[in-house]
């Protein structure tokens, strides 16, 4: 009797959760369905396209720089992530495992930059970037993110957990200090490193404020900037099916990646989230 009652309440929870899932997932469904509609379809309401219309996708691939934007986003996010992983782990390692005068000051200096919001820095970055002529180039979009204080902090916390004996043993074996970091320390913090890599990549993939400021020519746009600028005007009036097609192409591959690495990503985000 008791067991059945529990099952009943579980069923109700399932129903509530399912209702929530519908609300959360609906916009994505709507986005995909809308991308297969013709423009005139939008004015007579229906869930499904009256007939599958691929004109939005044809337009995206033939008339816009969408593929270039996609490549830009991949290149920028990949380079920034790689740079962040290398530098953050090297700094974190040095701050955690070396005792030298000034280590505390440097650590606090780096940590304090966490309090400076990007929003305040974009204007100086723009002025500085214009002076050295890197606005509207890859390096202009990438330079602010190459090293990141939160990642330094996270890496330091994990590097602290590496036993000193392990490093000393490597020293006795005659390994160079640089090699000890690369060969001994890094393998010890791989899970944290992959978590950091995931959130850095995601953050840069979705970044908007700085790229939209730093980019002026069409072929330098990243995916979010491209979609946003196309949608707000340079496509000439709001072409809903094309915008939804672009959104679909931007969002669906991310979802597939998320599905594959679901566990890793969720662990990474809750790990870094709670630690931060």
């Amino acid at each position, binding site marked *: 009797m008791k067991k059945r009652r529990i099952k009943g309440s*579980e069923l109700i929870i399932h129903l*509530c*959760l399912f209702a*929530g*899932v519908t609300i*959360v997932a609906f916009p*994505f469904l709507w*986005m995909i369905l809308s991308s297969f509609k013709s423009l005139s379809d939008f*004015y007579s*309401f229906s869930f499904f396209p009256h007939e599958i219309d691929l004109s939005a996708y044809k337009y995206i691939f033939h008339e816009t720089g969408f593929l270039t934007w996609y490549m830009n986003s991949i290149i920028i996010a990949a380079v920034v992530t790689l740079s962040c992983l290398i530098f953050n782990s*090297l700094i974190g*390692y040095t701050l955690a495992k070396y005792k*030298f*005068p000034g*280590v505390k000051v*440097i650590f606090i*200096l780096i940590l304090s*930059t966490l*309090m*400076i*919001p*990007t*929003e*305040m820095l*974009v*204007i*100086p970055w*723009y*002025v*500085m970037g214009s002076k050295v002529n890197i606005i509207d180039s890859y390096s202009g979009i990438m330079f*602010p993110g190459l*090293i990141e204080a939160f990642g*330094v902090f996270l890496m330091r916390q994990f590097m602290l957990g590496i036993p000193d004996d392990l490093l000393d043993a490597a020293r006795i074996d005659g390994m160079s200090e640089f090699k000890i970091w690369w060969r001994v320390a890094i393998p010890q913090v791989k899970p944290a490193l992959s978590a950091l890599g995931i959130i850095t990549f*995601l953050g840069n*993939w*979705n970044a*908007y*404020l700085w790229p939209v400021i730093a980019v002026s020519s069409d072929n330098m746009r990243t*995916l*979010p900037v491209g979609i*946003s600028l196309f*949608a*707000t*005007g340079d496509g000439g009036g*709001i072409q*809903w099916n094309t*915008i*939804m097609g*672009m*959104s679909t192409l*931007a969002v669906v591959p*991310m979802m597939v990646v998320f*599905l594959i690495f*679901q566990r890793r*990503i*969720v662990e990474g*985000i*809750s790990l870094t*989230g*709670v630690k931060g």
Partner: protein
Amino acid sequence: MSLKARRTMIAYSFLTIPLLFFLCIRIFPTVYAFSMSFSPQYGGSFTLENYVKLWHDQVFWKSVWNTCKYVFITVPVQMAIGLLIAIAIERVRHFRWIYRMIYFLPYITSIVAVSWVWRLMFDPNVGFLNEFIGWFGIPPQNWLSDPKESLFCVCTVMIWQSMGFSMLIFMAGLKAVPKQYIEAAQMDGAGTWKWFWKITFPLLNPTIVFLAVTGVIQSLQTFTQIQNLTAGSGSSAGGPLNSTISIVVYMYKNAFQDFNMQYASAVAVVLFIIILLVTLLQLKILNRNFDY
């Protein structure tokens, strides 16, 4: 050379490039932003005119007020919904990972892309929402084009996107609640409701503080959603009638549409001070010990 000196040298050789980076890309621009905010637009020496102008600027105060609204609406709601979902998922035995995955999905997707999807749904003529409320006999609304509703529409999108993050962090927090406490409470015959308020909720305190602080800082910086939900096709970002304008949107418009970088810097400095206060408050609360 002594071993100690050698290792100090190695440490500094590892740190040279990063330190230069932090000085040039973080510290110097901060100083620069402050100094710009005290400079007149067309050259000249130290002045307070940007801040005086700010004080009398109605649109600026509107943006501050709106930003407060964003914070006080989105943060509690996304946390409450996140907690509800987390508890519900903890209580079922099947399909847990599917639920978790779908609720979390909006958080990892591009803000720009989903803002446009929502903008389509909000559209008064071709959108889904007017059709939907029509089924219940509610007259069509103007949503984003109505100054009274627009801010809530932006909030909806923000909540929809970030509640999955709250859920995830709450799920981690719930896992950390010691099982024996729950068993002890059940043995004492405490009801579910009582068990939740007396045991689980206090134990979730660190999680709640963390989510509140990150949520507040994030909504203080709201920009992308507003820009993409309201700009373009004849209207300007933060509209209609500045009903959705936030501090960052106002800063952006001043700097990159009106090209008054000095005035925009003053706006940015105010934002910086607000965020600094929130961060200091966070440090104070987090340094208080939580008793388990």
